[in-house]
């Protein structure tokens, strides 16, 4: 049983994002480090654990982007994936364009499961997983925090507002993974060395045309400075009032 994990190269989540001079993109000079988007990394972990539990099957990591993405595919291979595929092309903010590229590749593969992160750490759109599923005509479960295979079904736990939901889907299916049980492992040093010997196919992406135009990007306004409302027990009523009326957290 084979699994493909779609992963995206994103700026490290600790990056202090700067808007570029054009006002519609991120200044890449300010990004010191790129990573595998954290939810995608959890998806890789989920795939590896599934393969380990089954004792068979292959895990492929698939990404769409420029040549630099090889670094993130290798990170997936170093964690333990068996093969990588890079679909070379320009990634845009248009989730549908990305989904079409990925679906075109996935169409011809025999994956019982396709896993993605619930969202990318950079654009936060949560579109690509469900769109890939729609394009492929396969069932999709989003925000899966853990799952188990039972025969030809996947039984997934989803986080919903204030609780958990248990969902069953027939395979092949698409799952988008969120926080919960799939804490990504460290790549072992042997894994890192083995990664460069694993197959990594590169080809041109098909049909990545974006219909979406970014009109502007702005950083959130600077947070106002902290305020000291007083000292000791006397200050408590005022503090409670402000927390309730201004901050609205009580």
């Amino acid at each position: 049983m084979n699994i493909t994990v779609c992963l995206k190269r994103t700026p490290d989540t600790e990056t202090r994002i700067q808007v570029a001079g054009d006002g519609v993109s991120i200044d890449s000079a300010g990004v010191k480090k790129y990573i595998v988007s954290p939810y995608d990394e959890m998806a890789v972990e989920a795939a590896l654990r599934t393969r380990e539990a089954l004792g068979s099957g292959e895990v492929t990591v698939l990404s769409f982007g420029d040549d630099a993405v090889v670094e993130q595919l290798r990170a997936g291979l170093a964690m333990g994936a068996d093969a990588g595929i890079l679909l070379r092309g320009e990634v845009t903010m248009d989730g549908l364009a990305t989904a079409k590229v990925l679906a075109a590749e996935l169409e011809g593969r025999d994956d019982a499961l396709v896993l993605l992160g619930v969202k990318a750490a950079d654009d936060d759109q949560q579109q690509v997983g469900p769109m890939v599923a729609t394009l492929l005509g396969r069932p999709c479960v989003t925000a899966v925090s853990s799952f188990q295979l039972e025969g030809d079904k996947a039984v997934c736990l989803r986080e919903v507002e204030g609780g958990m939901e248990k969902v069953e889907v027939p395979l092949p299916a698409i799952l988008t993974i969120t926080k919960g049980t799939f804490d990504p492992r460290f790549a072992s040093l042997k894994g890192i060395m083995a990664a460069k010997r694993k197959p990594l196919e590169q080809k041109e992406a098909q049909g990545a045309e974006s219909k979406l135009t970014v009109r502007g990007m702005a950083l959130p306004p600077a947070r106002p400075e902290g305020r000291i409302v007083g000292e000791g027990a006397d200050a408590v009523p005022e503090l409670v009032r402000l927390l309730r009326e201004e901050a609205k957290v009580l």
Partner: protein
Amino acid sequence: MSFEGVDFYDVDSLLSEEERMVRDTIRQWVEDRVMPIIGEAYIQRRFPKELIPEMGELGMLGANLPEEYGCAELNNVAYGLINQELERGDSGIRSFASVQGSLVMYPIFAFGSEEHRREWLPRLAAGEAVGCFGLTEPDYGSNPAGMITTARKVDGGWVLNGTKMWITNGSMADVAVVWAQTGEQGDAKSIRGFVVPTDTPGFTATDQKGKLSLLASDTSELHMEDVELPDSALMPNTTSGLKHPLLCLTQARYGIAWGAVGSAMACFDEARSYAKERVMFGEPIGAKQIQQVRLANMMTHITQAQLMVLQLGRLKDKGTMTPFQVSMAKRANVSMATDVAREARRLLGGNGILVEYHSMRHMANLESVYTYEGTDDIHALILGQTITGFSAF
């Protein structure tokens, strides 16, 4: 903001993709596993043994030895980067890995029998067994040639007697690589190496009490009283006397030269962020010239040290590195790190003496690192002899 390291000269661009991945992986591991516990372990004076299995699993132990024996078979630059990152956490953690990899696994690999290799290397690599290296004695530190520990040949084996002091990992070790005199005292050529399971009758270890440095590390004394060993305990390829333990030390010193860069980076990183945040006389102390000079010096010296070990690693990978080059790097970099740590501690003011900050822990640790594996003085004498041809020991 997590630890960033120092890379003022774009040294990253001189590293391969795998070397960077190794560095980043160990950096993250140290961030996640070492940093949250190290202060507490230090205060409790304990080596955090719970880290060993994962260090083994990830392949940090004997990482530059062959895959055939369960090791990661990394090149020496990647191996150096592991040391750098581990010592960024704590010199005690790096010491554990150095002893295990360079002083126990390396001699077993290079001088041991195939049986020794098969028996010990996979378990040592996996962290299922711990090793120690016994060379130093109470009366023979810088001058191990004079050692008085003896190995006497008897029918079917050897009998060891003597005391080894300052032995890292000594109390928790499953196996000890012990160096002993097989001839007359002072005959350095007759020194041989033995692979000694620590549960052999007559072998005991006691914890060194009263340390003020390297507190998160097991430092012990080994006592050997009529320790009977089979012939097979002798490492067959230790036929050139003291040269063999010195070859081990070259391996370990190489790693230490990298490790020192890591501890210096940790102190600089802490000092830099503290200088930007700590406000005194109405502005951050980092806006004052004195602290700027401090930070400028630290960064300059770290950058020099970083370039030195990288070239040393490339030479080692080419097979042309000399022990004299290692002496220079061990001496220069550890001395640099002791200075950086002290300056960082001073920049931190009163907070600088607290365990919540890292600089003073590094400062205290580095005094051990300055002394072990050839003191700063001894490496100066080694270089002096290389330069002039005169031995001044």
